[in-house]
């Protein structure tokens, strides 16, 4: 089996699962309980926060543990918008965000907020000038995805952050869910105020995430209750999930350099092979894209059929993002890039991780060719 859907989710490291099992079995106390079991669990939580902060080069009290990327993005966007609505009700984001950002923004529009959706060029990138021109007196939040989940295109986060330093009242949120361990981002240096991560995208388990919230940023909590997580999100902490996520983050970042080198080579090899195949259009830009995502369209064919054909060959890819593919929607990012309905309906995404190897490339390529021939025979 060749798993090429790592942007949807990654296979958890076995060490991570071991950690989860041990903590869930032995440290089941509620961290808020006064007794010893509670204090042991709390200690693990404290250590997790400290270690996570060290790994991300930020301060422990800037780490909020969440349930994942969607919660993180929702808390960042709605939380920042509500907490700072006295300052302004204008939000800027892009047309190629993950649904957990774009839908949260839509919801805010119902609450009377105004949202500017920045367009992207044919590579999928926003322009810094557009962003600059969109900033108004009442802009409270800018939310930009670092690595697009469908095509892997990168946004110039550091430049945006530097530009936003001239607008100290504007909060800068970055969805870094696809980037962690694959595209380095210096949170502090890039002037990022809020940053979303999700454990299962870096070989951790589903149900845990991290939201970096820079000291001094206020967010209105979406979940009220026992005021856990510095009051940003209530609810008994998922200690086993958090500890195992910390381990996943450490392993991911320790291997990051090696992983990037490896998947960059695989991606280059795949790209050169794929671009030689008739009927295939590569949508991922050559420069300024993440090393793990390749998006291509198979001219004229529905991508869903292609996914199943490859599956018969034990190669697992996806259509658009996992979140939208169930709805049979054309790729939103490709439409925004002006690629047109036809290419957007036939988009395939390959997403790599450190578990893939260069030896898999010939098999992937031959499976793709085989499936294409089958398709042509049946549909053509």
């Amino acid at each position, binding site marked *: 089996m060749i798993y090429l859907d790592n942007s949807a989710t990654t296979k958890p490291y076995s060490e991570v699962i071991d*950690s989860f099992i*041990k*903590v869930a079995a032995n440290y089941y106390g509620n961290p808020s309980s*006064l007794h*010893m079991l509670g*204090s042991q669990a*709390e*200690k*693990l939580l404290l*250590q*997790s926060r400290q*270690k996570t902060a060290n790994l991300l080069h930020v*301060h*422990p*009290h800037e780490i909020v543990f969440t349930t994942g990327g969607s919660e993180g993005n929702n808390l960042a966007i709605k939380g920042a918008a509500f907490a700072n609505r006295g300052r302004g009700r204008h939000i800027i984001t892009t047309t190629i965000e993950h649904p957990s950002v774009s839908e949260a923004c839509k919801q805010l529009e119902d609450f009377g907020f105004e949202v500017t959706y920045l367009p992207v060029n044919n590579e999928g990138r926003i322009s810094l000038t557009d962003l600059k021109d969109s900033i108004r007196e009442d802009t409270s939040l800018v939310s930009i995805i670092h690595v697009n989940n469908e095509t892997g295109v990168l946004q110039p986060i550091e430049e945006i952050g530097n530009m936003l330093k001239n607008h100290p009242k504007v909060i800068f949120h970055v969805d870094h869910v696809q980037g962690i361990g694959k595209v380095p981002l210096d949170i502090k240096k890039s002037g990022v105020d809020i940053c979303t991560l999700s454990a299962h995208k870096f070989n951790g388990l589903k149900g845990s995430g991290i939201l970096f919230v820079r000291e001094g940023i206020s967010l209105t909590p979406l979940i009220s209750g026992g005021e856990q997580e510095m009051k940003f999100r209530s609810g008994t902490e998922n200690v086993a999930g958090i*500890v*195992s996520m*910390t*381990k996943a983050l*450490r392993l991911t970042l320790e291997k990051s350099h090696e992983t990037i080198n490896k998947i960059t080579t695989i991606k280059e090899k795949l790209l050169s092979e794929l671009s030689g195949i008739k009927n295939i259009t590569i949508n991922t830009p050559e420069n300024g894209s993440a090393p793990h995502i390749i998006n291509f369209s198979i001219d004229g064919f529905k991508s869903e059929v292609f996914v199943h054909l490859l599956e018969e060959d034990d190669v697992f890819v996806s259509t658009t993002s996992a979140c939208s593919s169930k709805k049979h929607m054309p790729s939103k990012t490709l439409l925004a890039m002006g690629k047109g309905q036809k290419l957007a309906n036939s988009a395939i995404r390959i997403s790599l991780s450190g578990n893939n190897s260069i030896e898999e490339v010939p098999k992937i390529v031959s499976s793709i060719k085989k499936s294409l021939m089958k398709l042509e025979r049946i549909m053509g």
Partner: protein
Amino acid sequence: MQYDRILVRFGEISTKGRNRNRFIDKLSKNIRQQLSAYPGIMIEKTRDRIFIKLNGEPHNEITAILTNVFGINSFSLAVKTKSDLDMIKDAALVAFKDLDYKGKTFKVTVKRADKQFPLETNELNYEIGSYVLKNTKDVTVDVHKPDINVRVEIRKEATYITCMDIQGAGGLPVGTNGRAMLMLSGGLDSPVAAYLGMKRGLEIEAVHFYSPPYTSERSKQKVIDLVKKLTTFSPSIKLHIVPFTEIQEVIQKQVPDNYSLISTRRMMLKITDALRNKQNALAIATGESLGQVASQTLESMYAINDVTSTPVIRPVVAMDKLEIIDIAKEIDTYDISIRPFEDCCTIFTPSAPKTRPKKEKVSYYESFVDFEELIHKAVDNIDTIEVNAKSTSNTEVDDLF
């Protein structure tokens, strides 16, 4: 080519006359201990400098640690190269490029200790400076107030190049001014007092009063975490945990409510003093700040201090709470200190403690019980933990991360 050594300059040590060697020895020992995670390094002492040879150990991690070693005025990363013009030029460029130099100004300062070297100082300044300028972008020369001063010291045996002076922590090497017992409650003030004391060369042993079940395991852990944080500045610190429950219960029973706090404080000081004697320390350090709480009015201090003639050092006595908080944040003890657990002082706090206690009265109230025996017992049952950066780590738990 890369940075292969660090040149360390002393602070006040230089003025310490005949004690100088003792100070330098202590400093180099402290440096070695703080850098114990890097076994490759070698330390070389000279009269006015310490050289740390890196032998391949990572310089950025090591410089981060050195900024917390007291007694260091400043230090610089240095490159050693052969005393050959082309090699010097290349080394200077490498050292320069390692810095965040874009948009900055620089100059070259050559010290030509080897008077036989073919070129003169000014020619060398020009040669090296123009080489750096030619091979970089976005850099200008400013010989009066440069952002970066490329210092080149040409000796017969080798040439040393340093580019940037990094500010050290200042102060005096920990341990050069004797040992003190620090009363560590877990609040904001006492860790800051410890830090300031260590900065002036004190070696600290921490004393914490533990009153289960009135205080929890968590408050003890909090203190251990604080001490661990303080090991940033001193490689290893002893923490004495004093069993204090019995004495607190006796005080509750024996001493009137509004005097119980003063009495508790006096007992703590007595115990600390007895322990100090045992540990051959010469002073007691506290985080008391004048007028901050009822036990820290001048009248209270007078009544409490009455139990000993040992010097009590109060580094934060004249500081505002906000100033103390600033330092606590700087040394990263703030987040630990504000963890909301009861400590032995808060749990028995009377509703209206005396702010102007009389020492005669408190001695009278205490005279009905033989506290000496209780104190003796407490001192004998002290649990001492040696805390260092690695201690308190528990492999079983560490494996989880």
